[in-house]
């Protein structure tokens, strides 16, 4: 559609630039305030840091030393990476099995997994956290298992959809060549599943990384992840409401996401759109 006149094109581009500025502004405001003292953040949040209002890197130091940014970042990273790895491995295997075996229990299980996608977390959160306690899952290893259970619905749904598009002949040929189920899945099916695996990994990573409520309920007081540490700054878990430290924590937690996004933007956008089925 190249029918717009030059004047209109300039006008529309200016409009888009203005909207883009609106989209970036909130992040810029937070970065700006992360260099200012507490008083100046609440009295003039939109002012550029000046010699008077600037506190240099003090807020970041508080973030690192008092709030333990690195520890929270470490726990978030550990839980995210390990849960995603578990989800990829086990839900992929389960999806392939459920797509290939035509029995009543296989389809029942498939529908149960799909059903879990529409159930809001509030419906299960209380019994789930108590059960996790009873089963000794209230620790950084147990929570990986819980994430596998919650991530399974969407992941199995996406994997199964893709497995069904793989011609059966490929797997039959593998069987004739002497592959058992083990080899067929890991040597033949899994490599074909790669694009879906990337989608599943990105969707689950974004969810686990940003998740606040589940780790709060399951892990209790210890093992702060990033969203919990940020919430903790304001609820006074680290002594008083420190707005400057909050700003620094916000910046520190946004930066890795934006960096990751700029590097694998293509996969992220494609993955998120493919996951649009989730309600």
């Amino acid at each position, binding site marked *: *559609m190249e029918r717009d006149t030059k004047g209109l094109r300039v006008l*529309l*581009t200016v*409009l*888009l630039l203005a*909207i883009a500025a609106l*989209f*970036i502004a*909130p*992040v810029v405001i937070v970065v700006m305030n992360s260099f200012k003292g507490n008083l100046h953040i609440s009295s003039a949040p939109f002012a550029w840091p000046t010699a008077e209002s600037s506190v240099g890197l003090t807020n970041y130091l508080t973030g690192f030393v008092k709030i333990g940014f690195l520890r929270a970042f470490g726990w978030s990273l550990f839980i995210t990476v390990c849960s995603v790895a578990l989800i990829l491995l*086990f839900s992929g*295997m*389960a999806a392939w*099995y*459920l797509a*290939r*075996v*035509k029995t009543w229990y296989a389809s029942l299980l498939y529908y149960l*997994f799909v059903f*879990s996608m*529409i*159930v*809001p*977390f*509030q*419906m*299960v*959160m*209380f*019994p789930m956290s*108590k*059960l*996790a306690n*009873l*089963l000794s*899952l209230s620790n950084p290893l147990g929570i990986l*298992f*819980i994430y*596998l*259970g*919650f991530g399974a*619905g969407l992941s*199995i749904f996406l994997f199964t959809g893709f497995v069904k598009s793989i011609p059966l002949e490929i797997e*039959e040929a593998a069987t004739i060549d002497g592959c*058992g*189920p083990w080899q067929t*899945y890991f040597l033949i099916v899994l490599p074909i599943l790669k694009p879906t695996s990337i989608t599943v990994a990105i969707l689950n990573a974004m969810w686990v*990384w*940003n*998740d*606040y*409520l589940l780790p709060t309920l399951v892990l209790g007081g210890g093992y702060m992840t*990033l969203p919990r540490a940020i*919430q903790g700054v304001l609820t006074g878990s680290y002594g008083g409401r420190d707005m400057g430290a909050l700003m620094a924590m*916000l910046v520190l937690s946004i930066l890795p*996401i934006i960096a990751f*996004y700029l590097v694998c933007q293509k996969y992220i956008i494609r993955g998120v*759109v493919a996951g*649009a089925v989730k*309600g």
Partner: protein
Amino acid sequence: MQKTLKKARWFTIFVVPTLLAFLASFLAPFLMGIYLSFCKFTTVTNARWVGVDNYLRVFTDPGGDFVRALSFTALFTVVSVVTVNLFAFALALLLTRGLRGTNLFRTVFFMPNLIGGIVLGYIWQIIINGVLLGFGVDITFDAKYGFWGLVVLMNWQLIGYMMIIYVAGLQNVPPELIEAAEIDGASGWQTLIHVTLPNVMPSVTICTFLTLTNSFKLFDQNLALTGGAPGKQTAMLALDIYNTFYKRTGWEGVGQAKAVLFFLMVGAIAFIQLRLTRSKEVEN
């Protein structure tokens, strides 16, 4: 292969690990949740059957928390669905005109979607409080500030996401159809309403559904932006359920009953809405 796979050994290897995790984290808690909504309990091990008492208490609660949260959530959801989809569709139209820098704009508009709810909530709390500073109040002063704050936040977060889906839909509209409409003398507006829009109805279905459930189930953003203040006036359903469970001793059963009602509403909305919008789609 199917024959081999049916053996218990292969079921155990391929399905049981996921199944066990699913049982422990979702299926057992889900069934327990339904049962517990008819019980009085403080932990799940001391449940005592009380029939529909919890459900009655949801609606006879003198504070009226649930009903207020429901109407707040419903209003918020309607406003969000309309605004997010209008803006997202308009942006998608702008980004499918072959302008220079389209990819860069797409990157920028989508970015907020990746930021977590808690972080989003605090970012907007700073900005909205900064704006309200000029009027000598803050976001907790009046429920309407919290309401519109949540709407703005939701727009900032979801517009880029929905825009991407609309762009994909618009790119699939056959250009011949648009050209034919123009040759027949249709104005730009008529072409948009009568040719483009019916052809992107599948995208409209997906986006409406996504905005609807995302808005209805909102929790993190609500917790961080207003925490329900002033009072409980801006607490949405998910936050009200959370508060009933963890902030009111002796109300755990009522919290679970609210959660069951919440689940039924989310399920019903998803079902009704899909059926409604599907019938409007162009048959291919």
